[in-house]
């Protein structure tokens, strides 16, 4: 009976969302405050019933209710409880329910923490969010009911994909969804402004902190995904240009452009066209990501659900969202004109250049991801766009973006003088070039030399900017500090990614008992393999002693697992540190005690995720700036 209650709770949430759109709209039309003010209570009601539904699905997993098709397909009695919980969002239906829950969480947060937003604006925003909710709840109920029952109840369930039986899965999807769905907030702000015909300072001011928080979550979700792929997939890679990775990366690039565009619009009332289009694109790309994953047109580790009917539903939804919002944009385009001028050498120009480059980078990823699908669907043949295309094209666009990024903070609003800019740049360029030159003599890799220049260029400018601000104002403000931290994060990421790609060592070898192999001064000694028995798998565990300069520094135990369903899984063993990772994956038995092993030496790989975390921290610092706690002087 509990699954039926969960199903009914979802229906109640849908009805609440319908009323959340209908009643306040009627109130706005008729000038009835009582109806208008219903948007919040109806939103809270919607949130409550989605939460009940989610809790009941989780309960079905925990009590092994295999009469629920979704539970029977993704869990079994041997699955540890922690993975039964994460299995709730381990496949299509549950992850969609999580999406709906996250959307309601964001909406409730907006309704609670927007006390400085006038009610008329907030109610419009909640109506838009209600409309999005209706779309997702209908999608759940019509095509992806997580509470569907089985007529024949299996005695045992199937298996959660072993790739997903991991700590990373417990937090990666919720965080990524927080980012994905978070992009609906700036979208709702923009749409409500377009509908009201008031693209004013209020909209610009209050949508920025929400965009920053969504961007922080998106960054964190992508970082977690990359980290999970690194240690779980057993290939030692951290980014594969997988179409679904790209699907989350595109909204990130657009959100990055949006937070910068918003800062110009907010401060200088310029770039409103950009800001509106970026907000619409950001959410549309989030929906596109969902469409790509759920339609089944992609084959990757993420496309665990494939159903053309579902894909069709999202495609129609996407067309309505994109078509509807662009039509509104065209209708209100005249309201976005600004007479505020700026010179070619100004902060506005710097940020505009960076925005153009970020959009170009998005188009590179977009075309590389969708072009093969387009060709295939038109019957013009199958092509594969892989890492070489993305590496070359993306890098070509991002190098100037990084150069400009460091400079833009120094430029003054409206207009600046070339000699002043040259005066600053010449010093930082000299120091960055000196560091690069030293690197050039120490190593012979052009990519690392280039990365050293770009990273030191960004870090030097960021620190100089911070010193300048401290001298001028004493307290730089958290928004400013956030910008510095995020830019340093980009530099750290860039350096780490380049060094690990260029200097990483990978060896696929056969090792016999007590045989030693040396990589970059680290001696790996194979000590054999023992049998392994887990809660829902059997397998083998290898033991490898690692020594450096004669002293043992670690014992690594990579595993090869065989899950109940028969799916094999590699569990890599990693000795992590800030400057290098030692990574071992166990291969196959080659007889007579010998095994195939993959050994990796990964210098500075942790810097990639450290950079990502710094970007996230920067975004959060900026979101909680004092400027967003503005007190109005209200006369009673």
């Amino acid at each position, binding site marked *: *009976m509990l699954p*039926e*209650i969960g199903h*009914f*709770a979802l229906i*109640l949430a*849908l*009805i609440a969302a319908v*009323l959340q759109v209908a009643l306040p709209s009627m*109130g706005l039309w008729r*000038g*009835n*405050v*009582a*109806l208008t*003010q*219903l948007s*919040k209570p*109806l939103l809270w009601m919607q949130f409550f*019933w989605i939460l009940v539904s989610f809790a009941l699905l989780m309960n079905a997993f925990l009590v092994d*209710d*295999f*009469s629920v098709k979704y539970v029977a397909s993704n869990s079994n009695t041997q699955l540890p409880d922690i993975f039964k919980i994460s299995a709730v969002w381990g496949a299509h239906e549950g992850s969609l329910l999580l999406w709906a829950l996250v959307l309601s969480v964001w909406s409730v947060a907006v309704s609670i923490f927007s006390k*400085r*937003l*006038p009610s*008329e*604006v*907030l109610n419009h925003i909640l109506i838009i969010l209600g409309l999005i909710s209706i779309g997702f709840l209908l999608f759940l*109920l019509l095509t992806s*009911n997580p509470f569907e*029952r089985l*007529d*024949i*109840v299996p005695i045992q369930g199937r*298996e959660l994909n072993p*790739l997903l039986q991991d700590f990373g899965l417990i937090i990666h999807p919720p965080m990524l969804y927080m980012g994905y769905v978070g992009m609906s907030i700036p979208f709702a702000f923009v749409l409500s402004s377009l509908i009201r015909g*008031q693209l004013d*300072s*209020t909209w610009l001011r209050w949508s920025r902190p929400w965009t920053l928080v969504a961007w922080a979550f998106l960054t964190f979700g992508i970082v977690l995904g990359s980290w999970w792929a690194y240690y779980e997939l057993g290939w030692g890679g951290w980014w594969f240009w997988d179409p679904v990775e790209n699907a989350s990366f595109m909204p990130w690039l657009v959100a990055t452009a949006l937070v910068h565009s918003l800062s110009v619009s907010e*401060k*200088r009332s310029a770039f409103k066209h950009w800001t509106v289009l970026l907000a619409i694109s950001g959410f549309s790309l989030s929906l596109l990501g969902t469409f790509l994953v759920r339609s089944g047109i992609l*084959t*990757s580790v993420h*496309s*665990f659900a494939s159903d053309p009917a579902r894909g069709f539903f999202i495609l129609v939804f996407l067309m309505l969202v994109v078509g509807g919002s662009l039509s509104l944009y065209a209708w209100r385009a005249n*309201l976005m004109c600004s007479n*505020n001028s700026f010179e070619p050498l100004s902060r506005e120009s710097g940020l505009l250049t960076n925005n153009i480059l970020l959009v170009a980078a998005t188009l590179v990823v977009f075309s590389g991801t969708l072009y093969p699908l387009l060709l295939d669907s038109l019957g013009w043949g199958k092509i594969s766009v892989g890492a070489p295309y993305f590496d070359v094209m993306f890098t070509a666009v991002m190098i100037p973006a990084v150069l400009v990024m460091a400079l833009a903070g120094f430029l*003054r*609003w*409206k*207009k600046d003088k070339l000699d002043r800019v040259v005066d600053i740049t010449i010093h930082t360029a000299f120091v960055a070039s000196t560091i690069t030159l030293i690197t050039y003599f120490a190593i012979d890799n052009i990519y690392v030399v280039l990365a050293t220049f770009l990273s030191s260029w960004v870090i030097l400018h960021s620190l100089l900017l911070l010193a300048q601000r401290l001298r*001028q*104002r004493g307290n730089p403000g958290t928004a400013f500090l956030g910008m510095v931290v995020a830019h340093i994060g980009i530099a750290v990421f860039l350096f780490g990614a380049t060094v690990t790609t260029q200097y990483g060592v990978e060896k696929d070898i056969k090792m016999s008992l007590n045989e030693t192999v040396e990589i970059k001064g680290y001696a790996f000694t194979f000590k054999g393999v023992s049998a392994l028995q887990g809660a829902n798998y059997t397998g083998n565990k290898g033991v490898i002693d690692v020594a450096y300069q004669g002293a043992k520094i670690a014992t690594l135990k990579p595993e090869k697992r065989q899950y109940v*369903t*028969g799916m094999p899984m590699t569990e890599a063993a990693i000795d992590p540190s800030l400057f290098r990772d030692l990574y071992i994956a166990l291969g196959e038995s080659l007889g007579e005690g010998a095994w195939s092993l993959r050994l990796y030496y990964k210098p500075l790989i942790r810097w990639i995720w450290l950079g990502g975390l710094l970007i996230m921290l920067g975004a959060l610092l900026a979101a909680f700036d004092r*400027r967003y706690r*503005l007190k*109005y002087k*209200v006369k009673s």
Partner: protein
Amino acid sequence: MMYLWFILMLVISALWLSWFLYRPLKTSAFNLEKSNIALGRQKQTELEQDLQNNLIDEQVFEQAKDEIVQTLSVEIEQTHGTTATDDTQQSVSIGLIMLIVAFLFGASLLVYQSLTSYTTVTEVRVQSEKVPTLAQSIARIKQRVEEKPDDVKAWRMLGLALFESGEVKPSLKAYERAYQLDPKNVGMLVEYASTLAVSQNNQFTGRVSSLVREALEINANSSDALYLAGWVALNAQQLDLAQKLWQKALSLLAENQPERGTLQRMLNELAQIQNKDAQPAQQHQVTLNITLSERLHQAEFQNHYLMIYVKAARGRPMPIAIQKIQLKDFTGVVTLTDENSVMPTKKLSQSSKVLAVVRLSKSGSAMRQASDIEAVSQIIDVRDNPTVELKL
């Protein structure tokens, strides 16, 4: 009972909604105009700070200041152009509240009714409030096919359920009925062919072969049908064809599908067979020392059968080599060799990691029955010619 819960949920929702209709939330203390003015002021203050800190010169300051004022005047003008709502708190008439509550009740229950096909089977399930056993499910599906003899889905489910419970012949009858009703259903054809193969001691010949062919004619890219077609080819000693079919099936499966592991192993084993065909094969055997408990020495068990076999440690649980002995003829030791292999193309000696199994069955059926007693060994390697101790 379930509807009582639904009513309770609806009552909670209706009370919540009615309360806020009766006592609406207060509107924000700020209107749009005040908000934009406050923000304009803040911008102006920041601009003055920039001037003080020498970040802009006087001329730029004046320009920017004018722009702030202009922007604010445009915003105020836009605000005035819109219809302002009455700030006084308005309540809603009782009639409208009733209408909204009625909509809440009616729409929720109507949507629920239209989304659920509320059949007798599900009603029984919900009322029993516990997960039914396989036997109960079979009884309900039988009831269903009696009520609706043309329900293809139910016949197919019955076939599957009967197969799961070890009733192979009745399962085949159910599948045959489903086949007559809908011969173009690839999933059903694959299940039917698999069941038929099991009933023929895993021989993928005759009707099995034609069913698989029919499935592939309907959908040449069905990975399940391709998998079975590979077995048909293997049965016919067409190793290259089997390899091609399995490779195609593998290419159609997504990276994360567990079936890939099984197919990959089948292909590896096929490659080993193809390699070994060129060399004189080495013969291997598995010896099982089986100890019976005191109870099994009683006369009532003497006509029972011992099914002694080895099966692959991973993948499909089909026996590789098997001996079937009546308990009265059993000596305690059984040796499985290539002569006991089930498939001519998959000899025991060609296997590596296997499990040895001994099962006591009253009927001697190939499928495991609920009353059977079974013992399974640890994973052993056939290449070591192992001797296994099992207790029953």
